[in-house]
C-alpha cells in the first residue's frame, strides 16, 4: 500500500467522523471556520484601505488642478 493511499484512507475516515458529529457540533465547527474567514477578510482590509486612500488622493489632485485651471 502506497503512502498516498494510506493518506487518502485516513482522510476518508476523518471525513466520515465529521459526518457522525451532531448537528450543533457541525454548526459550531462551521462557525469557527466562518470566524477564520472573517479574520482573513479583516487582514486584507489595510491594503483595501490603502488603495482607497490612493484613489481618493488622485481624485483630490485632479480637483485641485481643475480649480487652479478654472482660476
Amino acid at each position, binding site marked *: 500500500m502506497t503512502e498516498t493511499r494510506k493518506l487518502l484512507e485516513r482522510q476518508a475516515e476523518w471525513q466520515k467522523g*465529521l459526518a457522525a*458529529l451532531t*448537528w450543533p457540533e*457541525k*454548526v459550531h465547527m*462551521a462557525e469557527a471556520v466562518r470566524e477564520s474567514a472573517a479574520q482573513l477578510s479583516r487582514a486584507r482590509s489595510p491594503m483595501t484601505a490603502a488603495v482607497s486612500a490612493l484613489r481618493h488622493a488622485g481624485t483630490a489632485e485632479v480637483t485641485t488642478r481643475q480649480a487652479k485651471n478654472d482660476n
Partner: protein
Amino acid sequence: MAELLNAMRDAGVISEYALFGAIAQMRYTEPVATLDADVLVAVPPPQTLELLKPIYEFCAARGHRPEGEAIRVGAWPVQFVPVFSRLTQEALEEAGSADFEGIPLRVVRADHLAVIALSVGRAKDFARILGLLESSSVSREQVARLAARHGLAEAWTRFEARFLND
C-alpha cells in the same frame, strides 16, 4: 438564533420559519463552510412591499443589527428569505423540527433542500445535492419525484447526466 426565530413566530411577526441553505444541509451531511445562515419565512397578511420590515424591527428591539443584507444574531449573519415559489412554500410547510441544544428549530427536509438547490443551479448548489445524496439522507428517486412535481424534471435529468451517470 433558535430562540429568536421561535419568539418571532410566537409574536406573530412571521407565521412560520424554517432553516435552509448550508446550516440546514449540515443536519444531513458533514460540515460545510458558510458565511451566513439562511431562513425561509412566511409573513402574515397584509403583505406590503416592505415585507421584511417587521422582522428587522423585531430584531433591532432585541439588539440585533443589520449587517449587509443580513441581521447579525450571535456569531451568524442571518438572511431572512420570504418564500418565493410553490417549492419554497411547500418546503416551509413540510419542514421538520430538530433539536438544537435543547431548543426546537424548524429545518427544511433533505429532499426539499436538494430540489431548491437544483432550482438555483450554482456550482455550490450542485455540490449540496451531491453531499445530500452521498449522505443517503435523500435518494435519487425522491429528488426526481419532487423535481418533477415542481417542473424541474428536465433540470434533474441534466444534473444526473452531468454528475451521476457513468
